[in-house]
């Protein structure tokens, strides 16, 4: 069975060029980047080259990049490193759990947190940010692109509001990095998180941009790695891979690959909507990253849809997996105001650099058929719950 992977917002395959770049750092150049000898010097140089590449991708200077174990650590570091008990934090209810749960944690520790709503397209209103400001607002954290819908947030406006209010602005750019050109100066953010495995580098590496002069408390305590902002021996192969992936992303923007990807995504979306009734795009009308579309298919069970498609070789996703692996309706779609049934009937398609037009054609051969089967076999709506007795 030919397998097609359209779940690149979950993770992406490591590109061959990226794997080639990182491979020597397992065996040949294995040194600890903190060692003073030849082996250490070799890997230190590689880490700093990678830092240059990541800085170039985000439009900052190399000294402003802190390598982490991934997006979650970068988000946690930004939030716990910038706000402390007594501070007020503004965030949105469509953030990734790495941001939401970090905020919840700080809330328990004595921070005040405002969770902003979104509109029907999953967009935060900058005026809501302004209205939420308080005297003690220390941090605003709003993502650049949403992982479920791909919808871009008005981060430049929010950056201005934060600057005027003298609050730090962090943006989780995990789903935007390498998909759209990014410039931290234009966004005027103080911190930005990215993750390697969402951009064709391996799992286990990420980075946090921290604007020069921003005081950041570390999460880890140990050696003076990463300018004392992140203790722990550097994951050199991962960092090298992230650097290479950043180089490739910059090159692909020059080739207009992002436009080609959005053309592929649009073809997938339009043909699905042309063939399937009672379906539509979640986040329709809002600017999106080029690789994502989230489509609802009314009267289907998204979970059964994902399983059916997986058994036929197409990998897509729905909602959020809870700890057992069962699916819960996406908090993002619920926050947009989708009824629970429609949230449960929504499927996310997300493309990667490896996907081709042929992949899209194969997906198009499977999706309408799967929807038809699911609808045909859907249970007839039952009468209300079979309550045997009433409460009193």
């Amino acid at each position: 069975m030919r397998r097609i992977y359209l779940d690149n917002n979950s993770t992406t395959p490591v590109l061959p060029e990226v794997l080639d770049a990182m491979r020597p750092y397992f065996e040949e150049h294995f040194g600890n980047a903190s060692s003073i000898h030849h082996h250490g010097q070799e890997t230190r140089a590689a880490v700093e080259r990678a830092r240059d590449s990541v800085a170039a991708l985000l439009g900052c200077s190399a000294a402003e990049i802190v390598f982490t174990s991934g997006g979650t650590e970068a988000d946690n570091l930004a939030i716990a490193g910038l706000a402390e008990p007594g501070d007020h934090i503004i965030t949105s209810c469509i953030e990734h759990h790495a941001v939401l749960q970090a905020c919840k944690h700080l809330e328990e520790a004595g921070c005040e947190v405002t969770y902003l709503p979104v509109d029907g397209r999953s967009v935060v209103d900058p005026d809501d940010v302004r209205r939420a400001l308080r005297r003690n607002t220390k941090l605003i954290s709003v993502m650049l692109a949403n992982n479920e819908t791909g919808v871009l947030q008005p981060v430049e406006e929010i950056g201005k509001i934060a600057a005027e209010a003298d609050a730090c602005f962090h943006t989780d750019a995990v789903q935007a990095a390498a998909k759209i050109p990014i410039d931290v100066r234009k966004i005027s953010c103080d911190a930005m998180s990215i993750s390697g495995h969402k951009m064709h580098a391996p799992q286990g590496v990420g980075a946090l941009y921290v604007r020069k002069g921003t005081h950041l408390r570390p999460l880890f305590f140990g050696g003076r790695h990463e300018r004392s902002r992140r203790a722990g021996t550097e994951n050199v192969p991962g960092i090298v891979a992230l650097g290479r992936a950043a180089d490739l992303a910059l090159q692909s923007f020059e080739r207009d690959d992002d436009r080609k990807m959005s053309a592929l995504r649009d073809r997938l979306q339009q043909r699905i909507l042309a063939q399937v009734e009672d379906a539509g795009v979640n986040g329709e009308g809002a600017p999106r990253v080029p690789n994502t579309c989230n489509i609802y298919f009314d009267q289907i069970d998204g979970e059964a849809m994902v399983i059916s498609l997986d058994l036929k070789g197409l990998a897509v996703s729905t909602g959020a997996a809870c700890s057992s692996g069962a699916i819960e309706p996406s908090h993002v779609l619920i926050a947009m105001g989708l009824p629970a049934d429609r949230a449960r009937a929504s499927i996310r398609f997300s493309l990667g650099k490896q996907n081709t037009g042929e992949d899209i054609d194969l997906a198009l051969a499977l999706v309408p058929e799967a929807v038809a089967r699911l609808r045909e076999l859907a249970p007839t709506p039952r009468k209300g719950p079979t309550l045997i007795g009433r409460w009193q």
Partner: protein
Amino acid sequence: MSDLKTIAVAMSGGVDSSTVAAIVRAEGHNVIGLTMQLWNQRRLAGHEGMPEAVKGRCCSLDDVYDARRVAEHIGIPYYVVNHEERFEREVVRPFVSEYLSGRTPIPCSLCNNHLKFDQLHVVARQIGADFVATGHYARVEYSDVSGRWLLKRPADRSKDQTYFLFGLTQEQLGRTLFPLGGMNKPEVRELARKHGLALAEKPDSQEICFVPGGDYKRFIDAYLAESGESLPDTSGELVTPEGEVIGEHAGIHNFTVGQRKGLGVATGSPLYVIQINRADKQVVVGSDDHLYSRTLRGHRVNLISVDELREPMRVSAKIRHRHEAAPAMLEKIAADEVRVTFDEPQRAVTPGQAAVFYDDDVVVGGAWIA
């Protein structure tokens, strides 16, 4: 079964369903492992009177982990499907509601009727499976004579689970496989070992899966507290069959017909709950003799081996899971109602439980005791 089918196996993470998956896989079928996520075991953990964490029971992360490892070991795709909402609606709330109404519910039958053989069958069909196989100890056979699917007791009578399966429809039975129906538990464990399943020695689960420690009263308290509802006041009097008030009780949901402990009255001879009257909140207690009755009425009837009860039928009827089926006459008395008349009076006929009717090994059908 000569030709190869696509079979979804309902995997709980226990020995039985894991062995079923290994058996059908070894037969060469196209097998898909499914686990139903029905209840978040941590949901009421830590509520007053509830244990902090629950390990090693259905829907716990440990069990999902075990099921996933089995699926990976035998090489089948495996998915967890979320039916928490429906489980709460169709099983948990009715469970609470039944107790508050003075009856003694059987959540496992509701789960079989509304989840395992209904929702799971729907998902299985949607994802392309022809059959659903489960680890129940029971047998399904097609009768050419009656043209109906029959539910039969398993070879291992001590493991018989047909009592919980009386609600299955013909369509559900026609799509169900019980591969353990001809085996006993040691044989199943032996097969599990033979297939190299790491959980071959895992102990059987006994309790109601969502009631940790089996303390349903605490569960009801915690559940109602969590959903912001107050426990309805069903406290009232303890009375004798003659109507004499001999004490008070804190709520009818604390009692089950046949119960001896926790009555809160001391008398010379042992007293048992013989009846619970919801309307006047009275719990009637009396001696053991009062517990025996010869007849019961059953409603919400499901017939399996026959399509209609045209005339009274000789059956043996079982009135709780651990009851020895007793000879009785079964007759239809209204549209969805039957009367069972036992040859000998039976002890503690309990409203809310099921009466299941057998003709030797064959399940004729069943009904809920009114």
